[in-house]
């Protein structure tokens, strides 16, 4: 992808349909939102008709509901249960297989990664950032013209991810109606796509019709746009589109406290709040499965009956799983408290040290899909309150000359 250009255009619904048709005709697997089983899921689209025209969602902690919309908008829903990692970093993937010959010597053969050429349609700005974050973790470096910072670049990238990511074309859909669990703005993002896309659409539905304001983000995006009927952007469409995205910034359903979260997490390792969370958390791992940045995997060995053929598979794993931290002698993180702490501390703090950016983009999925309704924005606020209360206590204690409270180990 070349540098982001300033080029803009307007597509109507026919133009969007032509865009999808052009991608399909070009041999790409087009993935985008569609309604299935009572949710907006991401699945292969055969035409633009599969998009969730006329559907919105109502979200809350532990709650997700589809709602019909009068205006027929296609991108007026927020993040659903899946994210694009399901395609770029699939749930299960074979890494290699091996066969043992008559002489007992195994031959190891790398399994060619499933290499479809994807086009992702309707990528939310939060999910664009999530993809950029997974790029750093799994592709070792930004594969195209994404962020150039390289702290902690992984020396041995995930080949399958890298291959699929390289070929993928990203068409963003900017947010005009954030959901009640969204908090991208306070997770240093926003409802506008600020890079890393080939095309960015902003949906506009008003008296002038149903249309999409388009920003071009790459040469490939420009070529694609050239091939479908579009018109040049008029000022009204552009200002309505940009205005709606700007307004969305003010309508975030939730927010993280405006604090140095890295410091907060580092200072909260011994907090009591973790016990409170542990009393509610079911360690079901839903939050890690739906999170667009969570990348952890484990491996397993599958042998056939002869015992001479074996396959090495990689599949998603979760830090909420007891076996995740298993060492000879038992798990390092046995308590629920320690597992939730690991998850949140990694997201908001140690991810920076490991990969040069944070690990949360504020998409709100973990809040929506937590069966216990655990809300990370609320938990962070509670941790901050606990820290502040402890600091106040210490001051008071010192003022009256008595001993201060021992808050446990504080690295």
């Amino acid at each position, binding site marked *: 992808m070349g540098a982001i250009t300033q080029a803009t255009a307007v597509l109507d619904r026919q133009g969007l349909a032509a865009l999808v048709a052009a991608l399909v005709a070009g041999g790409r697997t087009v993935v985008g939102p569609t309604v299935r089983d009572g949710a907006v899921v991401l699945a292969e689209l055969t035409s633009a008709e599969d998009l969730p025209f006329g559907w919105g969602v109502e979200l809350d902690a532990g709650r997700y509901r589809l709602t019909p919309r009068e205006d027929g908008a296609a991108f007026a829903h927020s993040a659903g249960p899946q994210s694009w990692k399901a395609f770029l970093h699939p749930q299960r993937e074979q890494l290699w297989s091996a066969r043992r010959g008559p002489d007992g010597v*195994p031959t190891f053969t790398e399994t060619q990664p499933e290499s479809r050429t994807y086009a992702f349609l309707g990528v939310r700005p939060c999910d664009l950032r999530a993809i950029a974050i997974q790029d750093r973790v799994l592709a070792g470096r930004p594969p195209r013209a994404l962020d150039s910072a390289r702290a902690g670049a992984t*020396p041995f990238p995930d080949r399958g991810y890298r291959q699929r990511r390289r070929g993928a074309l990203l068409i963003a859909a900017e947010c005009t109606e954030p959901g009640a669990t969204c908090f991208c703005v306070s997770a240093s993002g926003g409802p506008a796509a600020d890079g890393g896309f080939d095309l960015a659409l902003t949906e506009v539905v008003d008296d002038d019709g149903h249309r999409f304001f388009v920003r071009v983000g790459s040469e490939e995006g420009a070529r694609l746009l050239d091939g479908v009927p579009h018109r040049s952007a008029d000022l009204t469409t552009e200002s309505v589109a940009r205005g709606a995205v700007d307004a969305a910034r003010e309508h975030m359903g939730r927010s993280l406290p405006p604090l140095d979260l890295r410091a907060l997490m580092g200072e909260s390792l011994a907090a009591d709040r973790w016990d409170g969370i542990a009393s509610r958390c079911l360690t079901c791992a839903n939050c890690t499965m739906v999170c667009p940045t969570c990348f952890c995997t484990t491996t397993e060995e599958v042998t056939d009956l002869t015992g001479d053929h074996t396959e090495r598979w990689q599949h998603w794993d979760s830090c909420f799983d007891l076996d995740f931290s298993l060492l000879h002698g038992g798990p390092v993180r046995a308590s629920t408290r320690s597992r939730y702490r690991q998850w949140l501390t990694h997201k908001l703090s140690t991810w920076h040290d490991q990969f040069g950016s944070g690990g949360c983009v504020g998409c709100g999925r973990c809040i929506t899909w937590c069966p216990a309704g655990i809300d990370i924005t609320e938990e962070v606020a509670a941790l901050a309150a606990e820290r502040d209360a402890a600091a106040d206590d210490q001051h008071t204690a010192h003022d009256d000359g008595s001993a201060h409270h021992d808050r446990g180990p504080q690295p």
Partner: protein
Amino acid sequence: MTTELSVVAPPAPAVRHAEPRLPVPYRVIARWPETPDTVTLRLDPVAEALADFVPGQFAMVHCFGRGEIPVSVSSIPTTGGLAHTVRGVGAVSEGLCAARVGDVLGLRGPYGTGWELERALGQDVVVVAGGIGLAPLRPLIRDAVAEPRRHGRVNVLIGARTPDDLLSKYETRRWATAYTGVTVDRPADGWSGEVGLVTRLLDRARFDPPRSWAFVCGPEPMIRATARDLVHRGVSGDRVRVSLERNMRCATATCGHCQLGPVLLCRDGPVVGWDRAEPWLSVREL
């Protein structure tokens, strides 16, 4: 606190950079039992070899049909190949211990940081090993005693649960050090040596703390106690190098399992400075 564990530059990639997860066949050319549950395997490449290992680094060792586990290099013969010393504690490690001469295993690596003995040039060296922890330290000790003029006094302190659990018993005696101490937690009949924690041997070791480097590997409580003791005696925390263990599935910094706070132990470790590890090893269940 700002989480201030800087990311150490990763070592040069292995030969098979294009296929980072694919094991390379290595043949067992010699095998000797070290203790009732620990075996050393001397391995040579069947064809293509991995890049050179440095002491402290590890390989992912594959046992056909069972899986692969991280194992440190326990010897780096000048004639090529390498050795691993494996303690059988579960499916994969027991499978490796059962390997016979002539069997072929799969190896990939080298991974992780090394001990970096070369940083201790002209300084006293204190090596402290607990149990299987001697395995990753063995190539370092051999280097240290092979060229005595490069360092000050070299000390080797070894602890094990019982006399039966001591590795390298014969080699240990031959090492020309300023001090070699061996202690066990539980003596058996005929044991006339030391009894007690390995940290007790520090009183006998001959080193000048401000001019010393220490290299420590063993069970985590032992590492913690030893490193704290060394720092208390005046060795600088960043010169106490410890090798840590966490679950590892990929060794390529992509599986997320080997996190210790800000560190990915397969990439930024397993050998890290105690000054950096200490805050995170002091919190339970981190």
